[in-house]
């Protein structure tokens, strides 16, 4: 326990600045900045040099991000199987999507996955972050909680597939030793989605906790010291100090993790391949099957657009509800 309560002053000023999760000064767009730009232009323009510096990144942006985004939307209005040119079919794909029970099932399964995944992960990450902040400042422990994040989803999926194996998995051996029945975690329709959701919690909780931990670092320690002198309990301090002041960071982390969670694919592909009986056929897996299994790229694109719309709406709603852009840390 030699690293307990390690003083934080070890980091260089550079590191310290990096840790601050607060918004960096946004470029002011007021009259002053316009004036500055005009003055800069008179003083000399770096146009030629900037063109060289920006060219590779801009090329990458236009060719592999902007163009595919527009093309994805265009393809959603076509029938396209990769071999023959895309054929414009108007809203046919969307019409089909609305009538496709598997699509709605996939959407529902995905929402169930996200709810469990984000619910458990956020609470657990918050707990880990607070423990890392209030109990110890150990960098070693922070490193340890991050290790699962270094594994790929594929590795995490395979390992838990083995641990939770119905016949031979140590997880089920322990259950049986404790007097419970064996659970076919990934082979049972009801258990499969919660199990996959928790496997991904295992992989991502440390990373999420470190994001929140960085937010906690911005809360002045004096507040805790003062509350302690007043006799406040840790529990009370958590609700009265930590939660209100962490809110903006928590909100942004929540938005990011929800977006990531909706894109679940790898773990499903490795552990259940969408089964049993479509129980884990999440949207992204269904889209992949439509594109690469049945070569319906138009239909797959339409479902991708639907996912994009769902994500945009959720992000906007979350942003409004959590007032992510405002801080209470005055």
């Amino acid at each position, binding site marked *: 326990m030699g690293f*307990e*309560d390690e*003083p934080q002053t070890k980091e260089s000023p*550079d*590191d310290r600045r*990096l*840790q601050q999760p607060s918004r*960096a000064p946004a470029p002011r767009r007021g009259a002053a900045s316009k004036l500055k730009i005009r003055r800069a232009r008179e*003083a*000399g323009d770096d146009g030629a040099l*900037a063109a060289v*510096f920006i060219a*590779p*990144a801009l*090329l*990458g*942006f236009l*060719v*592999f991000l902007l163009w*595919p985004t527009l*093309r*994805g939307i265009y393809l959603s209005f076509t029938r396209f199987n*990769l071999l023959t040119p895309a054929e414009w079919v108007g809203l046919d794909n969307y019409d089909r999507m609305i009538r496709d029970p598997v699509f709605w099932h996939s959407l529902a399964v995905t929402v169930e996955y996200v709810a469990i995944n984000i619910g458990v992960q956020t609470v657990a990450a918050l*707990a880990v972050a607070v*423990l890392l902040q209030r*109990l110890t400042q150990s960098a070693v*422990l*922070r490193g340890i*909680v*991050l*290790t*699962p*994040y270094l*594994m*790929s*989803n*594929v*590795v995490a999926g*395979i*390992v838990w597939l*083995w641990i939770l194996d119905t*016949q*031979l998995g*140590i997880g089920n051996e322990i259950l049986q030793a404790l007097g419970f029945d064996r659970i076919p975690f990934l082979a049972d329709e009801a258990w499969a989605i919660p199990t996959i959701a928790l496997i991904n919690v295992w992989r991502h909780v440390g990373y999420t906790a*470190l*994001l929140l931990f*960085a937010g906690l670092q911005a809360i002045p320690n004096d507040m805790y*010291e003062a509350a302690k*002198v007043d006799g406040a309990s*840790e529990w009370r301090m958590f609700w009265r100090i930590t939660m209100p002041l962490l809110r903006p960071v928590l909100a*942004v982390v929540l938005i990011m993790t929800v977006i990531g969670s909706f*894109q679940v*694919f*790898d773990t499903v592909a*490795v552990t259940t391949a969408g089964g049993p009986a479509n129980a884990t056929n999440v949207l992204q897996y269904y889209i992949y099957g439509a*594109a690469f299994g049945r070569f319906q790229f138009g239909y*797959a694109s339409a479902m991708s657009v639907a*996912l*994009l719309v769902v*994500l945009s709406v959720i992000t906007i709603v979350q942003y409004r509800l959590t007032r992510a852009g405002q801080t209470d840390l005055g």
Partner: protein
Amino acid sequence: MVAMTTATPSVRRVRRRLSFGRAMAWTVMGLIVLITLLPFYWILRTALSTNPALATDPDNPLPVDLTGGGFERALGLQSAEEAIAQGGAGSGLAFWRYLLNSVMVSTLITVCQVFCSSMAAYAFARLKWRGRDKVFGLFLAGLMVPTIFTLLPNFVLIKQLGLVDTLLGIALPTMFMTPFAVFFLRQFFMNVPREVEEAALLDGAGKVRIFFRVLLPMASTPIVTLAVLTYITSWNDYFWPLMVSYGDSSRVLTVALATFRAQTPQTGTDWSGLMAATLIAALPMLALFGLFARRIVSSIGFTGIK
């Protein structure tokens, strides 16, 4: 410990009263560490066991019937007959090939992406040119597009370019930039005091020289963090390589592992070999993290929020 000794008497009293709570909190922390690390031990334990022993002795905490067969199978060192006899699939894993592919793809992506993104970040942060804010706004909007949305159209593009089943095809979409990388580094360059550049300008250095000789070295911490995170992300990527690569020549480790998992021998899954392969696939990232853990852990908040 430092904080404890400098605490005022009243605070120390409070601390002592909370000691039961602290003990509970440490217990929870210990449990978290256990759940985090136990699967890693279980990988090792399984990899060092033989398949028949795993079936008869599933709950022994130590390796059963200690063997290196799993690793030999994963590395393709066993003959087909030997592998089948030990419960593996006869078709070997061209492991070294996949490892090399993973290294090449991840290195290509990381080096190019970090270099191109830092040049762009400098142009956005420090150079004066018309339309700068508009172009940057466009990059920012790119942050909003979920990566997964661009995969299908990008596959169509890579196919049209004739780069399906090549390492370049896997690397290309993220080789030049990600909006995040540009944004992350721009943020750093914005915070560098202008005096630094002005001093160099007075010494007669050009802007190109300033970028390479002054700003890049100053940015080593964020650049290393970004590079390591990019390397880990591309190393662990599965979905995109799965779409683009079909044969051994371009197969990366994640895809190979998933394939290995899917080929079940008649005797049941080759858990020993699979865990050995999993461990070897994960080791490079553990080593990389071990080298840079301190820097990454302390700058991850900044990275993630932005």
